């Protein structure tokens, strides 16, 4: 990291996760989750989950169309958190088997692509 600030004020704790997790499309977020290690998922979840409520409050202070680039990165991170939450809290040690089965399900369109 070059120390550049990529996220809105208040979310500095997540700066280190932007490069790895702030993917703009649903398919990329799903692929990132499936390619991640348990340690990567747990570190991201532990950092991001406690900030979810604050992130939603910050991002909802403006209409979606008016979010700037930093806000969009934060939103992408929170959407990635959704994916990782399923792995960390629901599937747990079964996540690798689930990742293999999810491969068959090819995402062809998403309303939450930020591009």
């Amino acid at each position: 990291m070059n120390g550049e600030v990529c996220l809105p004020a208040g979310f500095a704790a997540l700066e280190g996760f932007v490069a790895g997790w702030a993917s703009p499309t649903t398919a990329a977020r799903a692929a990132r989750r499936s390619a991640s290690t348990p340690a990567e998922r747990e570190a991201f979840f532990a950092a991001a989950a406690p900030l979810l409520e604050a992130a939603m409050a910050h991002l909802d202070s403006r209409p979606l169309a008016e979010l700037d680039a930093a806000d969009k990165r934060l939103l992408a991170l929170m959407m990635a958190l959704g994916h990782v939450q399923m792995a960390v809290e629901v599937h747990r040690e079964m996540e690798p088997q689930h990742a293999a089965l999810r491969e068959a399900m090819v995402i062809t369109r998403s309303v939450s692509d930020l591009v």
Partner: protein
Amino acid sequence: MNVEARMAFRPPVDQTAWLGSDPIPAKAYYDPEYYEAERKAIFCRSWLQIGHVCELPEPGSFIRRELEFADASILIVRGKDDVLRGFHNVCTHRATQLVRDAEGRANGFVCPYHMWNFGLDGRLRSAPDFENFFLAKEDCALKQVAVDSCGGLIFVNLSPASAPPLKEFLGEYLVDRLARTPCARATEFSEYVYELDANWKLDYDNFQESYHLKFIHPRSGAATFTPENPFGYPESFGFHGPHRTQMFWPHVDVDAATPTQKLIFGAGARFAMEKGLMPNPTNREYYALFPNFFLFGSPTQHFSHTVYPLSARRSRGVIRIYWVGPAQSASEMLAREYSFLVVRDVHSEDVGVIRAGQRGLNSGVLEHLHFQAMEGLCRHLFNVSNAMVEEYRREAAGTGDAA
């Protein structure tokens, strides 16, 4: 969960008694000859769900859909008169497929081979050096398929001459309910697609019974299992001609959700409330439209699944989650992402057992399969499709005798 709020649950086993209790011939789920009869008796004659009106927003909008079971490529087009029409994507000169794009907007369709030019209504508008043919332009229109829509869903029928009107096929109850779903008002959707080594009925049946939930979705489905309804069975079934419905048991265990899930689901529910989508009688109803489509109600959005047969032992599925209006806020977008990924996650858990089921069937070792009373929807699908196959075989034999 609040103990006082718990209600007694009685599985509606008596509602499927009329379907009978015979074992089901296993061949119907793997035999190429049986599939060949199904293809002709069912898929080449029935109304099939193929898209949504939000994909064709303006005159000139078109979508192309591949129906592999018929080797057919179909164009659905919104005409200048706003009417939806369906055509085979086949040039009437020498059969070249006209359109390669999966969707788009056009003023007409020009064949890449010799530039025959067709209007949005399928008529041949012009063709180079047409005087040299021995033909009238009026006889060169694109071949039509029947198209109609209900509740926003677009259906096609490959046998336009014999197709009953769509609304007659669906029946009054379903026409009324489909019109009231959020899907009927949907403006956008997320989608994923899969191909699977499984007979179309085996694949589809997985989504018609709750018997497996507890074993295949022990964690992702945890909220569905409550002490009074440990299998998460539906509270009632409905049968409507070849179609069927079920009503889900509404008393889920909300405490099964983690704080993160509660935050995201809470946002989703808030937006659905604001859009007037809750409460809605269709929110926990499941609509299985014969032969290969279902729409699954939920309080915040509806998702659909179409299973296209590819062969006796392979199918392709298209899953969509429909939304009313674009997301207005970041939380709404997050809630949509999460709903979509949860459906895909839960569905992925089914894939392994469906594949394993087909491998078992292919061995040919079983003569019969068995459906219990709460797998009545699977039995109904078999009964309806098998009756059509038998009718078709009688017809074919009759034709043979006459010849």
